[in-house]
C-alpha cells in the first residue's frame, strides 16, 4: 500500500511534467526563426505550393489547435514524417533506439565495473595515497571531453595498434564478434565519464556508511573488515548510487551525440545531428520528445528502485 501511494505520487508529478515538455518541444519548432513549410517545400517552391503545404500539415491553423493536433497524433504514436528520407519518425526512432540501447548498456557495464569498486577502495583506504589517486582518476574522467577521448582512443587503438575498428556499426545478429568489437571504444568513451561520477558518489556514500553506528557494531562483533565493508557498509551506500546510476543511464539514452558522431554509430545521437543539419524538424522534435519521456520514465524507475532497496522508506 505504502509503495502504491509513493508510486502514485511520483506518477502524478510526471504527468504534468510530460505535458509541459510536449508544449516546450512543440514551441521549439514553431517559435524559432524559419518557416517549417519552406523547410518542407525547399527553396524553389512558389507561394501556392507553400499554402498547400501549410494547409496539408495544419500550419495555417491557430497555434493552440496545431498543438492539440500534434499532441493527439503523438499520443497514438504518430510523430510525423521525416523530410530527409520520407519515413515515419516513430519507425525511424524505434530502429535507432535498439542501437542506442546496446551502446548505453555496454557503457553502463563499464561504468559500474570500474566506478563502484574504485569508489569502495578509495573510501576503505580513506586518506591514503590510494584515495588521492582514485579521486584524481575520478576528476580526470569527469573533466575529459568525451569527443577528444574518442579521437585519442581511435588514434591509439584503431590507427596505430589496429585492435578495434575506428567506426561503423554491425548488427549483433549479423556478426556478433564484429558487432561487439565495434562497441568497445565508444562504450569506453561513454563509460569513463559515468564511472567518474559513480566513483565519486560511491566514495562519499561509503565514507558516510563506514562512520555509521551499525558499522561500528559490526566491527565490535568481530566481523572481518572485508565482511564489514562489503556486507554492511556497501549495501547501504549503494542505495543512492543505484538511483544515480539509473539517472545517468537515462542521460546516456540521448546524450551520446558526439560519441555516435565520432564512431559513426547510427543511433539517437547521430540521428539528432543529421536532423538538425538537414533541418528535419519532425525528426528533431520527435527525438527530443521521446528522449525526454524516456528520461522521465527512467527517473521514475529510479524512484521506485530507491523505494524498493531502501528499507527505511519501506517501513
Amino acid at each position: 500500500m505504502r509503495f502504491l501511494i509513493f508510486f502514485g505520487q511520483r506518477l502524478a508529478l510526471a504527468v504534468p511534467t510530460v505535458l509541459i515538455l510536449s508544449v516546450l518541444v512543440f514551441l521549439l519548432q514553431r517559435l524559432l526563426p524559419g518557416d517549417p513549410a519552406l523547410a518542407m517545400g525547399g527553396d524553389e517552391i512558389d507561394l501556392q505550393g507553400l499554402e498547400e503545404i501549410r494547409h496539408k500539415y495544419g500550419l495555417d491553423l491557430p497555434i493552440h489547435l496545431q498543438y492539440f493536433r500534434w499532441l493527439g497524433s503523438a499520443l497514438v504514436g504518430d510523430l510525423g514524417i521525416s523530410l530527409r528520407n520520407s519515413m515515419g519518425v516513430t519507425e525511424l526512432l524505434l530502429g535507432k533506439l535498439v542501437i542506442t540501447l546496446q551502446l548505453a548498456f555496454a557503457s553502463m557495464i563499464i561504468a559500474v565495473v570500474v566506478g563502484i569498486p574504485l569508489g569502495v577502495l578509495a573510501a576503505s583506504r580513506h586518506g591514503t595515497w590510494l584515495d588521492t589517486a582514485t579521486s584524481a582518476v575520478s576528476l580526470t574522467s569527469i573533466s575529459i571531453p568525451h569527443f577528444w577521448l574518442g579521437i585519442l582512443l581511435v588514434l591509439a587503438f584503431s590507427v596505430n595498434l589496429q585492435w578495434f575498428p575506428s567506426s561503423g556499426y554491425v548488427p549483433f545478429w549479423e556478426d556478433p564478434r564484429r558487432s561487439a568489437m565495434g562497441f568497445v571504444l565508444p562504450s569506453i568513451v561513454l563509460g569513463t565519464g559515468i564511472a567518474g561520477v559513480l566513483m565519486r558518489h560511491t566514495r562519499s556514500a561509503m565514507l558516510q556508511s563506514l562512520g555509521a553506528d551499525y558499522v561500528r557494531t559490526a566491527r565490535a562483533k568481530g566481523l572481518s573488515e572485508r565482511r564489514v565493508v562489503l556486507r554492511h557498509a556497501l549495501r547501504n551506500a549503494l542505495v543512492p548510487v543505484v538511483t544515480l546510476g539509473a539517472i545517468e543511464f537515462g542521460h546516456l539514452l540521448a546524450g551520446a551525440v558526439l560519441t555516435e558522431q565520432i564512431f559513426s554509430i547510427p543511433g539517437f545521437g547521430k540521428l539528432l545531428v543529421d536532423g538538425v543539419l538537414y533541418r528535419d524538424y519532425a525528426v528533431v522534435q520527435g527525438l527530443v520528445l521521446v528522449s525526454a519521456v524516456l528520461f522521465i520514465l527512467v527517473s521514475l524507475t529510479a524512484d521506485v528502485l530507491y523505494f524498493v532497496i531502501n528499507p527505511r522508506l519501506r517501513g
Partner: protein
Amino acid sequence: MASVTQTPVFVRPESRLRRVLRRLARRRVSLVAGAIVLCFIAMALLAPLIAPYDPTKASFMLVRKAPSAAHWLGTDEVGRDVLSRMIWGARSSLLAGAIPVVVALLFSVPLGVISGYAGGVLDMVVMRVTDAMLAIPFLIVAITLAAFLGPDLKNAMLAIGIASLPVFVRLARAAAMSIRAEDYVEAARVIGSSHLRIAFRHILPNMLPPLLVQASVMAAAAIIAEASLSFLGLGQQPPAPSWGSMLNAAQRHMAAAPWMAIAPGAMIFVLVIALNIFGDGLRDALDPKRR
C-alpha cells in the same frame, strides 16, 4: 598582592570575503587551479602579442606539417599554425565559459527568487517547467537551439545559456526558500520592509555562495558544450579559431596528422579540470559546516 586587571580585547570580526579567501588559500590544489585559469585568461587577452603567426593565414606550402622549430605544434589541413590557432582559440572557449553563465544567472536568479519567495501556484508552475527542461539532456537542448538559431558563436552561447537555465533556477529557488525562513528575513518583514526590498537586500546577497560554486562548475560544462557545438559545426565558424572546430578538422586527418588532435583537446581538458578543482575548493571554502 597585586591585582591583575584584564582589559577586554575587541577583535574585529573577519569579513566573509577574507574568510573565504583564507580558506581557499589553505587548499594549495585549488590555488594552482585558480592560477591555471588566470593563465588561460592571460593567454586569451595577450593572443595578438604571443601568437607566433596569423591564426587564419593558410599556406598550401605548409599543409599538415609535423611539429618543428618553426611550427612548434605543427600545421593544419590548410597550412595554418596550430599553436597560433590554439592560443587564439582560448578566446572563444573562455567567452563561451563566461557568457552563458551570465545569461543563465540574469534570467534564473530573479525567477528562482520570486518562485522560492512567493511559493504557491507560481512556484509550482516554475518547478514543473524546469522539471520538463531538465528531462531533456543539456547538450541536446544546446544543439537543437543552436541549430535552429543558426550556426554562430553568439547563438551557441545563447543556446548554452538557455540550456543551463533550469539548474540555476532550481538552485536559486532552493536557496531563496531556505533563506526565507531565516530570522533576519522575518525581522525585516516585521519592521515593514517591502517584498522587493527583502528579496534583493536580504535574500539575493545570501544566496550568492551556492550560485558562485554552480557558476564555476557550469562554466566548465559550457566550455565543453561550446567545443562540442563547434565540433559539430554549430559554434564558431571557420576560419575563426576554436578548439572544438580544430578537433573536428583533426578527426578528418587523424592518420596523416595526429598532432592536430592533441593540443586543442588538451587545452579544453586542462581548463575544464582546473575549473572543476577550483569549484570544489570554492565549495569547501564557502561551506559553513567547515568553519
